[in-house]
């Protein structure tokens, strides 16, 4: 039997923009066991609800993660709105949907770039990030912020997108979709990419489900779970079908994300077409009294904000379960059997967002 050695991976590692530490147990070049350890970015944001008023906490919720910041704010606001029985105007719901899908587009393009870098395809990394900048331009134009938007608030939204800008976005969608399809074509049909990804980091449908995986990791294994089907914000009106792949390997997870780019573009198009007129927010009076599990589909999967208010300006408890935390057990299951050189690719394939995970 070959001798076992332990190789530390992270917290500072070239392929990781964020710190996570894995102890890889190797037999020669083959991974046989993985021990993850986290906590390098733990800040203690859940406890901050006791120091910030419930309306101010939206700013903190946005900074749980800089990539899906809008969706964290959305999830938090929807929770508070449900507790306080606030009905958000339709226009706000549609604009929230547009910004959510823009966040998903930029997050997926970011991930595709990092993934390409992880497998050693630097041109593709640059190309993905170049496309991503056009999404960030739209976000900056409509909200004022590139990565932290600050437009979502309890009871609605802060900014409107004018009709002129909406028309401009609509016109830009077609050429943007064509560019995304050209990019996706390389990820899905290039022989070298296929050779690198297919059959790597496989997780079976039952395992993924039993380990509580979320998002593209789960859908890549053939489980059709996407919270957008529950119809929060405007998704109920837009008609949405989850993207599912069945192979359960790195290629399938990549394919789910590439195809989600197209579905996001389609959702934005339909949201702009069906944009209702009306007010942007309703006045919020009183304080939340009650509890609610608020759930939103983020680029990485399902995020849960548990919120409990006791009738004061400060919430009594917040608990945030993020998709990467749910995907780490699945990652530990995927890695054994992989070569050491494939570890970065497999780790990136769950789209780890450590800031979310550790809050």
């Amino acid at each position: 039997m070959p001798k076992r050695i332990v190789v530390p991976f992270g917290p500072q590692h070239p392929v990781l923009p964020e710190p996570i530490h894995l102890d890889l147990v190797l037999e020669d070049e083959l991974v046989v066991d993985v021990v993850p350890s986290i906590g390098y970015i733990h800040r203690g944001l859940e406890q901050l609800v006791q120091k910030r008023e419930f309306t101010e906490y939206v700013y903190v919720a946005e900074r749980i993660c800089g990539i899906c910041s809008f969706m964290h704010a959305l999830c938090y606001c929807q929770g508070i709105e449900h507790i306080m029985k606030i009905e958000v105007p339709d226009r706000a719901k549609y604009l929230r949907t547009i910004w959510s899908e823009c966040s998903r587009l930029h997050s997926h393009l970011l991930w595709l770039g990092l993934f390409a870098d992880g497998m050693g395809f630097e041109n593709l990394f640059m190309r993905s990030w170049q496309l991503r900048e056009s999404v960030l331009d739209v976000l900056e134009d409509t909200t004022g912020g590139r990565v932290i938007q600050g437009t979502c608030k309890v009871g609605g939204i802060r900014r409107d997108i004018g009709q002129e800008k909406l028309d401009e976005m609509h016109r830009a969608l077609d050429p943007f979709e064509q560019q995304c399809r050209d990019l996706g074509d390389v990820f899905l049909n290039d022989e070298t990419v296929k050779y690198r990804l297919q059959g790597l980091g496989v997780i079976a449908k039952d395992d993924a489900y039993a380990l509580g995986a979320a998002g593209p990791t789960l859908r890549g294994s053939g489980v059709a779970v996407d919270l957008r089907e529950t119809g929060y914000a405007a998704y109920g009106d837009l008609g949405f079908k989850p993207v599912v792949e069945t192979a359960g390997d790195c290629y399938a997870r990549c394919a789910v994300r590439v195809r989600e780019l197209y579905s996001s573009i389609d959702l934005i198009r339909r949201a702009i077409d069906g944009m209702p007129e009306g007010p942007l927010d309703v006045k919020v009076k009183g304080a939340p009294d009650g509890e609610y599990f608020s759930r939103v589909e983020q680029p990485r999967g399902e995020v849960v904000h548990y919120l409990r208010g006791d009738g004061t300006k400060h919430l009594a408890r917040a608990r945030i379960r993020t998709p990467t935390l749910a995907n780490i057990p699945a990652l530990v299951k995927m890695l054994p059997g992989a070569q050491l050189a494939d570890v970065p690719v497999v780790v990136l394939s769950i789209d780890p967002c450590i800031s979310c995970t550790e809050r």
Partner: protein
Amino acid sequence: MAFLKRSPWILHYDASSCNGCDIEVLACLTPLYDVERFGIINTGNPKHADILLITGGINSQNRPVVRNLYEQMPEPKVVVAIGACAATGGIFRECYNIAGGVDKVIPVDVYVPGCAARPEQIIDGVVKALSILEEKREKMTGEAHTKEEARHAAEAGEGT
């Protein structure tokens, strides 16, 4: 950029930021901003790096990591703290696990404000860091030169 005589290499570490500044650091390297055209390269190895770009505040778990990275970098080196959290702890300063800005653990030369800091600001910060790096290098070579002269003087003194 006429004064850019050498190619400075950058090490990036996320101490405990929200990710916002980190993706902006990466955005600096990609086609729109493209700092690589100036010879600035993002390296993963602290032993090759001249400039440490660090985002986020300090907590109990990453304190030794940050110190370790800083100590592994060869002299002369410059630290750039990116974003409000790296400067003071920012919006997280009241969290129980945040000790404050990066300067609680290692000396910081340049502070880049913003939440999240924009790529243009980060590039400005790096350009500022370059002149500090050059100053430090001159000081080091100057000191080495003075030492050398003193040694020669001492040797010459012994001879007579």
